[in-house]
């Protein structure tokens, strides 16, 4: 097929010119943005750890791999905000094994860590990626591991390498090898095509899960990462679906009169919190997914919606405008009175709770400016801090390790997604499809 042959030939040619890295396309498939992902760093990089990821040597026979795994690793570490990576163009030596590292060079470049690696052929056309992580001042090897993956999944291998390095240095499990869900809208009203998408955590390898001519929103991952619950208007009014990602098979779990919205799986996956308005106005309900029975959790004439489970499954956080404007409240999973959680900011909605239950991200509105803010309750009463610039930011979603968030923003008339470190210091726009992108939801850790 000429269409396949030409890009491959072009990439081979560029490899021969020693420009393999530049030849790498940002994502596979047609209609994708070719934007170069730029990382925006604010407030300096004081606490970020300097690390160099040396380009991995290709030691296989046959065509070089289309993905340079070290590029994936470098970009992941940089995006996390925890690391300051040395630009590829500033790398002056190219060791591929620990024994070849000249530590004075990396000391001179003020690097705390250096990663070296090589890619070799494995059985069945797969590639074996061997890598080593060194502490530069101590000249000590911290990691020496190998991961084997198909050539088509080298980005996945890169994310797993980045996770291991991240965990070794920070003590926190990495969350780069995870997936995200989001919604795209293409076309002009009334001919808009909506799609529910699943992609790698950095936006690469996008796959269409659902296509619809009517709005789709609020994707929510099952804790095992195998299913998504979402809201679709394809029946004319809102309905909640649960869909298996691998097979595409799906079921309507709620299509009552009025709003069927904001689904959220419980941490054990046995229940679904949802918003229903069939009794007059939106309230929070919990559905047992086995029996499909629903139990009403809130009963208030205000709008109660956007329930999220606390990690222990005993409490839910939700948005309510019972005090006038939307604020976050907590209610026990067994019902009872709700208590108010947020007091700073005139508008706080759509929370995302970190895995340890200590941080609450939300869309915070003040006047006409809507930013993402994080309420950190790990110390005392808690501190509220905006982590995005605004002005139409919404829909925050924590990574499963709480280190980063995804959120939706706008660029002119178009919706775009950003990944931001939990402290707001480092921000990067995801490379995704052209058109309108919204409703990001960060999936759980994956099992190898």
């Amino acid at each position, binding site marked *: 097929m000429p269409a396949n042959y030409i890009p491959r030939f072009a990439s081979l040619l560029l490899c021969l010119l020693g420009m393999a890295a530049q030849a790498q396309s940002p994502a596979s498939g047609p209609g994708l943005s070719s934007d170069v992902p730029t990382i925006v760093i604010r407030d300096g990089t004081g606490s970020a750890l300097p690390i160099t990821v040396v380009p991995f040597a290709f030691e296989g026979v046959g065509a070089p791999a289309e993905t340079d795994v070290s590029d994936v690793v470098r970009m992941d570490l940089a995006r996390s905000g925890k690391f300051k990576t040395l630009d590829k163009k500033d790398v002056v030596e190219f060791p591929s094994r620990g024994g070849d590292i000249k530590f004075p060079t990396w000391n001179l470049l003020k690097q705390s860590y250096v990663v070296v690696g090589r890619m070799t052929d494995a059985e069945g056309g797969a590639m074996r990626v061997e890598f080593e992580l060194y502490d530069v001042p101590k000249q000590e090897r911290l990691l020496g591991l190998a991961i084997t993956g198909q050539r088509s999944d080298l980005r996945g291998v890169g994310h797993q390498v980045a996770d291991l390095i991240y965990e070794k240095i920070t003590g926190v499990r990495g969350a780069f090898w995870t997936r995200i869900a989001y919604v795209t809208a293409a076309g002009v009203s009334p001919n808009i095509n909506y799609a529910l998408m699943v992609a790698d955590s950095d936006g690469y390898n996008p796959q269409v899960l659902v296509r619809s001519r009517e709005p789709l929103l609020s994707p929510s991952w099952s804790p095992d990462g195998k299913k998504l619950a979402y809201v679709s208007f394809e029946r004319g009014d809102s309905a909640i679906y649960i869909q298996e990602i691998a097979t595409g098979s799906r079921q309507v779990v709620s299509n009552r009169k*009025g709003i069927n919205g904001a689904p959220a799986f419980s941490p054990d996956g046995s229940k679904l919190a949802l918003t229903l308005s069939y009794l007059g106005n939106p309230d929070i309900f919990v559905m047992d997914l086995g029996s499909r029975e629903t139990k009403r959790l809130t009963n208030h004439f205000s709008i109660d919606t956007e329930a999220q489970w606390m990690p222990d499954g005993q409490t839910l956080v939700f948005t309510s405008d019972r005090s006038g*404007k939307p604020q976050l409240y907590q209610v026990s999973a067994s019902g009872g009175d709700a208590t108010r959680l947020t007091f700073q900011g005139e508008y706080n909605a759509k929370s995302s709770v970190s895995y340890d239950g200590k941080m609450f991200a939300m*869309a915070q509105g003040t006047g006409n400016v809507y930013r993402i803010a994080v309420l950190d309750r790990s110390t005392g009463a808690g501190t509220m801090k905006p982590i995005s610039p605004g002005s139409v930011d919404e829909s925050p979603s924590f990574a499963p390790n709480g280190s980063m968030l995804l959120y939706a923003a706008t660029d002119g008339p178009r919706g775009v997604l950003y990944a931001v470190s939990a402290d707001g210091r480092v921000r990067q726009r995801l490379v995704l499809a052209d058109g309108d992108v919204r409703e990001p939801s960060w999936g759980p850790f994956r099992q190898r």
Partner: protein
Amino acid sequence: MNTSLRLAIAALLCVTAVGCAKKVKPTSSTQPSDSTSQNASTDRSSEAGPYTEASLNSDSCLRQRVIYFDLDRTEIRGEFQAQIACHSKFIRQFPNYNVTLEGNADERGSREYNLGLGERRGNAVQSALSSAGAPGTQLNVVSYGEERPTCKDHSEDCWSKNRRVEIVYTKN
């Protein structure tokens, strides 16, 4: 009795509508007698000419199918009372028409909360139509929240166009 109550409400709405319309006329009198005569003439004209199905596309009031709302509000502004009155009259007259009230919000804030806000606005129009005599069985509310904007600029001018309820007729 029910009918007379409805008529009374409809008449009241007409007064409000006329009252509002009058506000933009600097020369109009504020005397009660004048207001009453205006009201009477409005009533007469609507009773004199019942709608036909074609009125949906020809009558200047029935052709107005969008009601706009203030920020974070669900009250129906005075300027839309005439619209409520004429649509409720048409709906009552044609039981073979169903009406979907599509509630919408502007882009600011979260999508699910905006679904709630859109529904609130839809409900406000539904109860206004019901109060003005439209049978509830012909009315249905669907909220699209911020999903169906008519305009996508990030300005109050645009937002005010998106905070709306659309009156959509379907014939059985």
